């Protein structure tokens, strides 16, 4: 679920084009329709993203409602939001209380490469936010509170193998900053929105697209996340994935396109709307919101 484009950051690679000046936010009515869908169709996971999903005024109510149901709750937290004010400073405890699995972007284990992508000072703030999550038990053995990190390359190149990056991040964050986490997901940057602008302006577009196409992996294609999900936009429309959502590439007309009329059976047999951006999901080890797919 993409609950809105409002965000306290404005990262260079953001595929949602999110930022502090965006006004699109999911309404209570759409949230309620999503809850009905959860009750009816029993998905295994509800994955909340944005923008900064925590900035939606209905966010906490919705998470509390979800936590009464047996569904895994995932929140894509950009970390710096935790430091934005006292109100957001309560988030680590709120997440822990509601057994939310936290997934957070950290482009690199060093400040320079992280700040280049996400803005000056973001690395230091992210480390502080991770410490606060660790302090309530996230990423610590035996607590069951899961904190996963997301890596995506700070430029026009592919991610390193996920397990190797995870080892590097763990060593550096543990030794340098005493920060713990559970798993690291390595994502490939998809050529859309701000990252596409960057590719075009920097003259890297052609080479990057050629590399993506050359690295096409049928096994990764068979594991693409759109095969097992439905993506709900802030205004209640349904898409094959978050990327199609921001591109406004609608689901095929053979299926209902609004959350109020979602039909799981029809959705599972739909034809997925694809475009050249899909090569980002199918290159090499594959890429999804949960990292490599192969």
């Amino acid at each position, binding site marked *: 679920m993409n609950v809105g484009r409002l965000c306290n950051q404005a990262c260079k690679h953001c595929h949602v084009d999110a930022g502090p000046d965006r006004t699109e936010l999911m309404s209570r009515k759409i949230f309620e329709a999503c809850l009905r869908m959860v009750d009816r169709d029993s998905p295994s996971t509800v994955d909340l993203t944005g923008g900064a999903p925590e900035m939606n005024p209905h966010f906490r109510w919705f998470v509390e409602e979800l936590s009464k149901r047996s569904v895994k709750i995932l929140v894509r937290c950009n970390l710096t939001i935790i430091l934005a004010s006292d109100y957001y400073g309560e988030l680590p405890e709120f997440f822990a209380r509601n057994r939310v699995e936290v997934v957070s972007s950290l482009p690199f*284990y060093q400040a320079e490469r992280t700040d280049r992508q996400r803005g000056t000072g973001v690395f230091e703030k992210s480390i502080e936010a991770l410490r606060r999550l660790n302090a309530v038990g996230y990423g610590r053995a035996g607590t069951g509170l899961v904190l996963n990190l997301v890596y995506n390359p700070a430029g026009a*190149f*592919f*991610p*390193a*193998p996920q397990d190797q990056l995870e080892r590097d991040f763990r060593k550096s964050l543990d030794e340098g900053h005493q920060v713990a986490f559970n798993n690291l997901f390595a994502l490939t940057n998809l050529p859309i929105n701000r990252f596409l602008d960057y590719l075009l302006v920097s003259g890297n577009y052609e080479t990057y697209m050629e590399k993506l196409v050359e690295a096409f992996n049928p096994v990764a294609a068979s594991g693409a996340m759109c095969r097992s999900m439905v993506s709900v936009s802030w205004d209640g429309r349904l898409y094959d994935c978050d990327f199609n959502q921001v591109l406004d590439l609608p689901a095929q007309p053979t299926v209902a396109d609004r959350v109020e009329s979602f039909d799981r059976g029809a959705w599972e047999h739909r034809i997925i709307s694809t475009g050249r951006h899909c090569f980002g999901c199918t290159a090499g080890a594959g890429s999804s919101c949960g990292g490599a797919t192969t």
Partner: protein
Amino acid sequence: MNPYYDSKDLGQFGKIGDFGAKASADKFFAWYGEVFKEGALTAREKSLIALAVAHAVQCPYCIEAYTTDTLEKGCSGDQQMEAVHVAAAIRGGASMVHSVQLMNKARSLSM
């Protein structure tokens, strides 16, 4: 005149065998592939060595290729730059150590 080095030309490297000496080219690429496989050294260590050597032999194609490759193997800027310093140190050292020959010759000519 076109510039000698164009990044796009690297894409043609694999086709040198089509122009001539195909059997040798095929053997070269097979050997090259073997060299860079994970072995006693990791693929990342090999890539950093390649980046250092690329600077020592000053090959623009190899510098671009192994800058990308080391990034894709998760190397940090410090790791990449330290590799280049190693190459530079050996190059510089190789000049400096020859000054021993200078000293030996000078001494042999001097009273």
